[in-house]
């Protein structure tokens, strides 16, 4: 989260005029800033170690990363603090409460997806509503080859005899990371080629259709050849092999002693997947950051702003758009492979339109085209999804068990319909977030510099109106 801006602003941060920076940045300036942040992290870690299940503390820990991002200090310091938080504090608290590792894994997974989508939507300006299809391609690739599905190609779901032998060894996971990237990039090109001529809203609808096509295929390719096992999904999927000393030897024993909790194979795999996802996320951040300022990235910006002008300046439209689709897809393809191995189960339900939109919400909430923003958006939406709403659901159901009354309307909690489960209302939250962001802050929480200028053109009294036609309409329409 903190790496990219650190790189771009760190070198001149000491001399930078802070007057137009945000409040947090100004507060954290000077030598007291790092001390405060370190103290904050220490206190939160200590409290979280005492109370591993506290939702608020989990939030505060992740908010610590945001504080680090906002610090106006040298990049190495920010990187060090962020690194310590991600590599040491979160796993250490994860020893007490493995759910934190799960959140970390999912945040990293979805941040990677959001960064990939950000390349397509934020950099190149191509609205893709079926993005999760590429995630599905990666996940199903490893699901099909990393499970026993290949033995069952000619039997209908649920009828095949189960063997103990897998067609491919578990170590094939690593090559399949590469294959996942390739396959997803291929799917990106496949989608990109026919829709190159479309722009804006048409493209959105076609990609949405593509996402649905992938889901319907996953649901129905159990005949004539049973490739995806239909709606039941594929399980078990192999996890990559870990050396024995990690899984059973002295390390888990020592960790068990430290944490006072039995650390088994599953926990060690949770650690492994957490670190794997974080490594892939860091790689993605670095890669996307380099891309943004590369020749290709500038071409994307050019076609986003005005493709006719871009072509006139010699940007190859076809190739540039296709690379955006391919690279954006590639990130999520590899994450799909990791996700399938982590869950050891894939089914078409994971790859619904809601999922695609939730990735879009992450990008938009954080800020289109802004790498730190997108990561922040992913963290917020993911925690909202798997942590806040779930916790609310649990609270509600425990209230329902009791005999209390709902305040104000005086109906017993127990009579509240079970359908009113906050975890089921993701769409309500996402929808509201999208509308509110679009109306009040279309540039996102941490806007990219360029987009901020674009969307607030009219704040500058000297700038010409963005759209003179629109100005006229708003001034003539009276109601």
């Amino acid at each position, binding site marked *: 989260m903190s790496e990219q801006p650190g790189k771009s602003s760190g070198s001149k941060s000491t001399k930078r005029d802070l007057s137009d920076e945000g409040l947090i940045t100004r507060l954290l300036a000077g030598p007291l800033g790092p001390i405060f942040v370190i103290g904050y992290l220490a206190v939160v870690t200590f409290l979280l170690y005492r109370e591993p299940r506290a939702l608020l503390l989990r939030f505060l820990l992740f908010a610590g990363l945001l504080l680090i991002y906002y610090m106006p200090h040298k990049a190495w310091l920010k990187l060090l603090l962020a690194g310590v938080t991600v590599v040491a504090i979160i796993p250490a608290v994860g020893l007490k409460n493995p759910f934190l590792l799960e959140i970390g894994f999912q945040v990293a997974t979805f941040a990677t997806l959001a960064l990939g989508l950000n390349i397509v939507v934020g950099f190149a300006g191509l*609205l893709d509503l079926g993005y999760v299809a590429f995630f599905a391609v990666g996940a199903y690739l490893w699901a099909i080859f990393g499970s026993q599905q290949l033995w069952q190609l000619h039997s209908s779901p649920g009828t095949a005899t189960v063997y103990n032998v897998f067609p491919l060894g578990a170590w094939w996971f690593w090559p399949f990371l590469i294959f996942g990237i390739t396959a997803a990039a291929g799917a990106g090109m496949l989608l990109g080629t026919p829709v190159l001529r479309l722009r804006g809203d048409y493209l959105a609808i076609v990609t949405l259709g593509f996402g649905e096509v992938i889901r319907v295929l996953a649901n129905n390719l159990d005949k004539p050849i049973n490739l995806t096992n239909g709606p039941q999904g594929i399980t078990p999927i192999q996890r990559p092999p870990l050396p024995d000393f990690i899984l059973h030897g002295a390390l888990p024993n020592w960790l068990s002693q430290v944490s006072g909790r039995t650390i088994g194979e599953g926990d060690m795999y949770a650690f492994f997947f957490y670190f794997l996802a974080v490594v892939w996320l860091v790689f993605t951040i670095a890669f996307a950051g380099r891309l943004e300022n590369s020749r290709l990235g500038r071409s994307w910006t050019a076609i986003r702003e005005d493709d006719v002008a871009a072509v006139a300046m010699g940007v190859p439209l076809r190739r540039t758009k296709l690379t955006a689709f391919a690279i954006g897809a590639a990130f999520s393809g590899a994450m799909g492979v990791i996700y399938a191995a982590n869950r050891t189960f894939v089914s078409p339900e994971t790859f619904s339109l809601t999922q695609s939109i939730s990735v879009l919400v992450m990008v938009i909430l954080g800020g289109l085209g802004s790498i730190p923003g997108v990561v922040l958006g992913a963290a917020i939406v993911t925690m909202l999804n798997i942590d806040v709403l779930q916790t609310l659901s649990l609270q509600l159901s425990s209230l329902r068990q009791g005999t209390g009354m709902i305040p104000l309307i005086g109906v017993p909690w127990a009579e509240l319909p079970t*359908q009113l489960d906050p975890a089921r209302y993701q*769409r309500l939250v996402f929808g*509201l977030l999208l509308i509110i962001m679009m109306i009040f802050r279309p540039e996102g929480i941490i806007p990219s510099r360029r987009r901020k200028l674009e969307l607030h053109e009219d704040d500058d009294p000297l700038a010409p109106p963005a759209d003179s036609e629109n100005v006229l309409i708003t001034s*003539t329409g009276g109601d």
Partner: protein
Amino acid sequence: MTNPIDAGGAAAVSTMPASAPLRVRRTNPIKEILRPLGQLLIFVLGSSIVMALITVALALILRPTRDDMDMLQITLILLPQVLIDGLVLGFMYATIALGYTMVYGVLEFINFAHGEIFMFGAFAGVELLLWIERTNGLDVGNLAAYGLIIVAIIVGMVISGLLAITTERLAYRPLRGAPRLIPLISAIGVSFFLQDMMRFMQSAINGDFYRTFPDFGPFGKRITLFSMPLDDRTIDIAIQVKSLIIIIVAIIMLVGLNYLVNATRLGKAIRSVAQDQRTSSLMGINVNRIIALTFLIGGALGGAAGVLFAFKFTRADPYMGFLPGLKAFTAAVLGGIGNITGAMLGGIVLGLLESFAAAYLSIFTNGAMGAEYKDILAFAILILILVFRPSGLLGSKTTQKA
């Protein structure tokens, strides 16, 4: 503006010059009613015949691939029923597609939430009938039952129309003039929000999120149109009263809209705003009001389609709007978005295609592809149309603008 809501009429569509609105055109009300009727008839007959011929030809070609049944015979047995089902579906799609097309014609904006406006209409109609049922009001004669259906449709139209105006006012109008993706994203948000809003309301009030259309009146009865002798047996071709009502109501809607847009002062204002907002406002047209009215009309049509949809499939649930909405959008694009006649044609063609796919895919592919693939078909058509003829079947100009 490149994209006027067209004056209707296939001939006028392709030849209408940019200066057309300047010509004073006398409209004959009778003609404005008869012309869309004629067009609809041509569309229905034309696409039915084309689809039937293609299917029979496919059956003849694929006949040798299956020896367990006579493919041609089965195809012929199913054909009339498939045609009727397809037309019913097609008329519903056409009615929904008009909502997309009207809004697109005026604002060049895909109202992504139109499917949810359709869903709200369906719930409004169903809730009204359920309420009447609770007061034992559904135990009525045939005539009154027809009346109740009409009332339900009108209530659905009112609710959906108001909802459409509200969403326009709250979620789209503040964004007018922003970069193009921004209102679209807001519309996606509205769509998601409305889905779960309805789910929330239904769950809070009823404890469950879907509602069943009450069973009353003579609507399940089947009218035998004709009997078809085939080899040694006869097959009755029948249509449900329900389906007949759906077709008739949809035709009334389509003709009414055509009349409204082509023969009234309001319609002229709508066409003018679609042509050029700035000039219209200089001519004394209140552009904001016309845009709101466009949403109202489109939403009302969607609401009527929603009640009909719930009527046909006897169920209303919060997510029912998504697929029909997407398909109706496909229909609008297929016919040429922004073009009212095109939306009707597109709807009918798409309904027929879907019904044919659902019935025949499994037969023709020997069970390898089931009826589930009919949804893919709609998207495949959408992609093909957008790639090869983005202006649609009846459109004359490219409608895309950055």
